[in-house]
């Protein structure tokens, strides 16, 4: 499958619109969540609270539901994940356009955090949690900033 090359200017317009609407949408989301008993304030400690919200609203948020209502609900959730990442680990929103073959190409991501040039995708993080209920959202975030590769040094190296 060939990747359709995206127009950077059009993608930036899409990003600016997202960021323009985000404060009002997030305010409404947090108020509605609070009314249902979920306390969300962009601290890392509230991520288990977001996970509780995701469990309780699993049917309305189901990844395979492509209705406008489900998409809008998920948008508010991954915007919250992205803003929590930004508040705690730095960086800013952008559209991933560096590598047309990348899994993240065309996605809204957080960039400019840490020193490895990584991108954090709030939507993929939400998707992983909705699909599998693990890993914890906080640990998926921290995997992008606290790097600790698996140690396989105790296993023998083989020739082929």
């Amino acid at each position: 499958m060939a990747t359709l090359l995206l127009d950077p200017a059009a993608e930036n317009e899409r990003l600016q619109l997202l960021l323009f609407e985000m404060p009002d949408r997030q305010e409404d989301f947090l108020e509605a969540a609070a009314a249902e008993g979920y306390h969300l304030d962009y601290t890392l400690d509230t991520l288990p609270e977001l996970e509780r919200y995701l469990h309780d609203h699993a049917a309305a948020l189901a990844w395979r539901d492509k209705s406008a209502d489900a998409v809008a609900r998920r948008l508010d959730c991954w915007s919250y994940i992205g803003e929590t990442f930004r508040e705690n680990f730095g960086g800013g929103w952008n559209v991933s356009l560096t590598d047309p073959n990348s899994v993240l190409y065309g996605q809204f991501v957080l960039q400019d955090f840490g020193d490895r040039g990584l991108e954090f995708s709030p939507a993929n993080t939400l998707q992983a949690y909705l699909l599998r209920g693990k890993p914890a959202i906080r640990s998926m975030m921290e995997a992008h900033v606290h790097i600790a590769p698996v140690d396989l040094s105790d296993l023998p190296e083989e020739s082929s």
Partner: protein
Amino acid sequence: MQAGGPASAFVAPAAGTHGPAPLPLATQAEAVAAATASGKRKLVAGSDEHKAQRWLDFQARNAAKAEPWSYERWEKQYHTNMRNTSVGLAREAEYRQAMNAESKTLKTPLTQRQIDMYIGDELYCGQLKTGKMGLNKQARTEDIPKDGELIKAGYQVEYILEKGGSKPFLTALDRIGASYKIGPQIP
């Protein structure tokens, strides 16, 4: 240049001594120059540039008292392996078609990871191995640690091991939380 020694280490095999020269001298020189200039750029397997660089690498890795293969023997192995690479790539394409997957890449904290079969709706990263897999240096120090980072970031990583894997290789997959299937998964 990687640890392949200087370009002057490339010695064209003399006809009659090591079999027919593999490339015309001018082409060899160009390939070596290109290989030398390539730095850490990933070379395309099977290209003249790749072949010249791998011959340099091979020579540099032999100890002084070792008895390295002749160029003729080395070249035969090179072409066998390149054919296997083509077969592996073709098989990957068959899996992608069967699974409605794509070939993708993703930058991990440990540099870029090539994903043989990626399914976006599942965040599924499939890796195909058509030969028996051991925990070689590439797998132990690069591929599996990168896959571990993908799993930590929420992706599912699955290996399809058409001819199985060694115990250390499977242990390493277990350790990062990757799943695996043994044997061909498509006809």
